[in-house]
């Protein structure tokens, strides 16, 4: 059965709410990844190299301030996560130069990987307080997700 937009929107909202609800202990967080990897439904922590270095601790997904909308470019429904209302999640480095290849949602404490994404191009930071402000951290739900 082909769902209507109302069903897809509700699923997106509930999925986003589910993820946000998991920020309580042990908590789900975003963390940058230091080595090349391939996003996959079967990704585990051993497949990636999280950057736990000083200044690069995981960024918790907060309880509110997220965006649920529709991408006008392709019609996808989107759930995007922010640090607060309209404020992008922010990573910064406080010491050594490094290259980030992407990021992952992990469960802090158990280090279970929940999701991952490659940066379009690896990003190298070289000095104190270089920052990464990613414009979009979240999920896309295409219109043909359900048939």
């Amino acid at each position, binding site marked *: *059965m082909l769902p*209507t937009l*109302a069903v897809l929107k509700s699923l997106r909202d509930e999925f986003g709410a*589910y*993820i946000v609800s998991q920020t309580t202990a042990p908590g789900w967080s975003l963390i940058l990844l230091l080595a090349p990897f391939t996003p996959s439904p079967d990704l585990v922590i051993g497949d990636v190299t999280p950057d736990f270095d000083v200044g690069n601790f995981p960024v918790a997904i907060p309880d509110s301030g997220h965006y649920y909308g529709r991408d006008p470019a392709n019609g996808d429904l989107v759930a995007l996560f922010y640090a607060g209302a309209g404020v992008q999640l922010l990573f910064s480095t406080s010491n050594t130069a490094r290259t980030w290849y992407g990021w992952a949602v992990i469960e802090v404490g158990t280090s279970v990987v929940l*999701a991952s994404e490659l940066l379009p191009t690896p990003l190298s930071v070289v000095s104190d307080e270089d920052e990464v402000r990613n414009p979009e951290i979240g999920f*896309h739900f*295409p219109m043909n997700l359900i048939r």
Partner: protein
Amino acid sequence: MKPVRSLSNRLSTILAGDTATIGAAAANKLGLIVAPFVPGVDLLLADITLSAATGLVPIAGVAGAQFESVDPVSGELIVEVKPPAGGFRWETPVGFTGPVTVYGFALIDNGAANLWGTQALQDPIVLTAENESIIAPAIQFRIDPTKVK
């Protein structure tokens, strides 16, 4: 982001129990669509014609969370609407004259205010006399979790 399987598999649980739509506390209803239509995500209730004829009115399913499972062959996540006792079955009553052509099925909310989904029959069924019946196939929403990105 690309969710891992354990996360994307939550989609069916969430949809099956979504109290705003498929898992509503007031049982959703399955109705017969009796005018030509093209299934689409942008369809609204006003875009289709549901039968209101005696014996052919929408039938309430089961309230609350619906079935959810995984197709072992395709890996798709399945949310299946629970049929009521007796199933989603319609029968033309005594004195029915017709003809009424059934083009498909629509899942709507209990108060008939919202459309949740549509399914077209490959070949429309024409009801012309009393004691003719239609039994709906399994009403399933099939989610391809690999499409979430």
